[in-house]
């Protein structure tokens, strides 16, 4: 699905991302963990063609993301509030995203149905602009919009941050369902080790831009990660 080949990003002589090789096969869900400044977001931005790599390439389904925008048809993503058109109401925003993917109003409602638990009655029908929602609710809107197009690849940066405990658990279950029922390929970064292990079957650890560990999730993973991050 996604192949990274000798990818580097260098800012003023500092290497922030340096990944010689990373392959993500279709249907795989990969969790990216690492401390602040490890290069998670920069990596995601390069995968989404928002930052030009200093070196190397990102291939999505074998096509370099820089050369063609085809990947946008099957990729849903939410990194931060910069992805939200914050002067629209929630409904208008979902409609806009739905329209771009050729979904009818009914399709949009249907696809949002699984999100109603997560939304907790605070998102739809609020008659207010997205910019006036709380950070947590903005995140829910962004994640829902990313999933709306039923993408083959879903890229989320810190989806659990800013959410209350119930919402975190609901979102976790939602992502698991998506993975199991739709075989969605996922790339999720998180600081919450237990959640990310629950959702993802593979964990990679980034440190100072380097990929230092790549493992399949099993019952010992949480322990291993905790040991790794205990300094």
């Amino acid at each position, binding site marked *: 699905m996604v192949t990274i080949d000798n990818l580097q990003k260098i800012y003023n002589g500092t290497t922030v991302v340096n990944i010689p090789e990373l392959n993500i096969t279709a249907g795989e869900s990969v969790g990216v963990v690492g401390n602040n400044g490890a290069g998670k977001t920069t990596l995601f*931005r390069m995968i*989404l*063609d*928002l*930052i*030009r790599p200093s070196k190397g390439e990102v291939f999505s389904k074998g096509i370099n993301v820089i050369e063609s*925008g085809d990947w*946008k*048809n099957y*990729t849903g*993503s939410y*990194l*931060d*509030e*910069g*992805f*939200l*058109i*914050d*002067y*629209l*109401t929630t409904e*208008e925003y979902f*409609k*806009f*995203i739905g*329209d*771009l*993917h050729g979904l009818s109003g009914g399709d949009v409602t249907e696809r949002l149905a699984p999100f109603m638990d997560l939304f907790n009655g605070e998102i739809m029908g609020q*008659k*207010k*602009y997205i910019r*006036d929602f709380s950070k947590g609710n903005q995140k829910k809107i962004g994640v829902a919009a990313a999933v709306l197009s039923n993408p083959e690849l879903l890229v989320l940066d810190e989806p659990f941050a800013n959410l209350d405990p119930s919402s975190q658990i609901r979102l976790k279950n939602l992502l698991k369902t998506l993975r199991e029922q739709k075989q969605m390929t996922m790339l999720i970064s998180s600081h919450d080790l237990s959640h990310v292990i629950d959702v993802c079957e593979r964990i990679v650890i980034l440190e100072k831009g380097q990929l230092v560990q790549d493992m399949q999730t099993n019952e010992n993973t949480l322990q291993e990660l905790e040991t790794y991050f205990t300094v």
Partner: protein
Amino acid sequence: MFLTLLAHQWRSDLRSSVFQKSLALNIILALLILYFGGIFLFIGFHLDKLLGELYPGQNVVSVFNGMLLVYFLIDLFFRFLMQELPVLAIQPYLHLPISKNKLVHYVLVKSVPSFFNLLPLLFLVPFKVTAVIPAYGLGIATGWLLALMTVTLLNNFLLLYFKRQMSNKPLYTLAFGLVIVGLMLLDYLDVLQLQVVSQVVFGAILSQPWLVIVPVLLLVGTYLLNFYFLKAHTYPEELQVGKAKEATGGDITFLNRFGEIGKLIELELKLIWRHKRTKSVVTLSVMFLFYGFIFYGNGKYLDGFAMLIFVGIVLSGMTMFNYGQFLPGWQGGHFDGLLTQRISPYQFLSAKYWMMVPVMVLAFILTLPYGFFGYKIILINTAALLYNIGVNVFVVFFFSVQNTQKLDLSKSATFSWQGVGASKFVMMLPLMVLPILIYLPFGLLGVPYAGIAAIGGLGLLGIIFQKQLLQYSANRFTAHKYKLAAGFRQS
């Protein structure tokens, strides 16, 4: 404590990103202030002679007094348009052990040293020295100046109060505005002569200096009115700040017929409608439609061509220049989101193109009545319209990839220099000067109409090759998009 607060304010001004970013801009701003300050000083020193010539045989001071009331009404009007409410600044202090009274006094006193309050001093003081002191003596003249400055401050606090009321009790503000308009109207209908009233009121202060107490009392009253109102409402959600506005405006279904480009246009129209700064750009652009009167009303421009070409370009193109010069900084807040959606750069730019074209055509139609000044104007404006649609839009697109600064859309455009940089001035040159340069050789050869045809023809060529030009702009956009996205993320 009060001084600490002021020091914080000073730092917040000094450290604001706009102020720090561009030295050149600050120099320009300083020059502008010096220029206008100089003009006011000059007027102040020569006002007595000027009024003496305009109204021979009348007492200069009393003529001046006659104008004051109208001046203060106009002052109020401009304050209403431009003066900002100083409120947000106290939010971080509300939870700290500082008494509310102090904070409220601070907010109110902070509004005093503003541009609007200091400007009158620049011409009042010289006028006092040259005209009032010789006639009435230092003591009375000082009382008079004091009264006028008090009225200026009275305006300041009146406006703060009514502008603040606008959010919860709009009827108050409306009534206030109606009273002022009513006064102007009565004056116009000669029912009430503001000039005479003004002469009597301000003349009274010169004959009975103790009357200064009246405006002072009024000022104290208004200050207290503000004080108690603010004190009772020191909650951010009760003041205008941070109040979530209810969503307005539905879908523009008509645009759905144009597919994805229609959607993008709808999106951008909502952006314009729902933000303060974009709305004020639109208002400003409407005012530019009246620009023609300055030139067409004056016979000497009507004989030439070059100036009329300039006016023609401005009339139909100003909205596009005003809005387009910041592209795509308007969408800086969600630029990453747009880039990851199924929108090609070609669609992105086409939507902007097809949003601007109708606006320019509309501006052209609205300014058609200028044709009464001569049919030549219609001819030139048509050529200018074609040139704007065929060439200038793409010039704007060409320069737009340099706009890496995100715009803060919640601020009003008046006095907002955010996003303005040297590139903006450079960009305006080809937009307005190039068509005149194209015309120039024809003008010098004595075939001006051929020059007009050349401008129109060039525009027509641009319209014919519109697809290719859009594709070129899209390619340029693609090449620069990382730089743009990085810039928007930072600012």
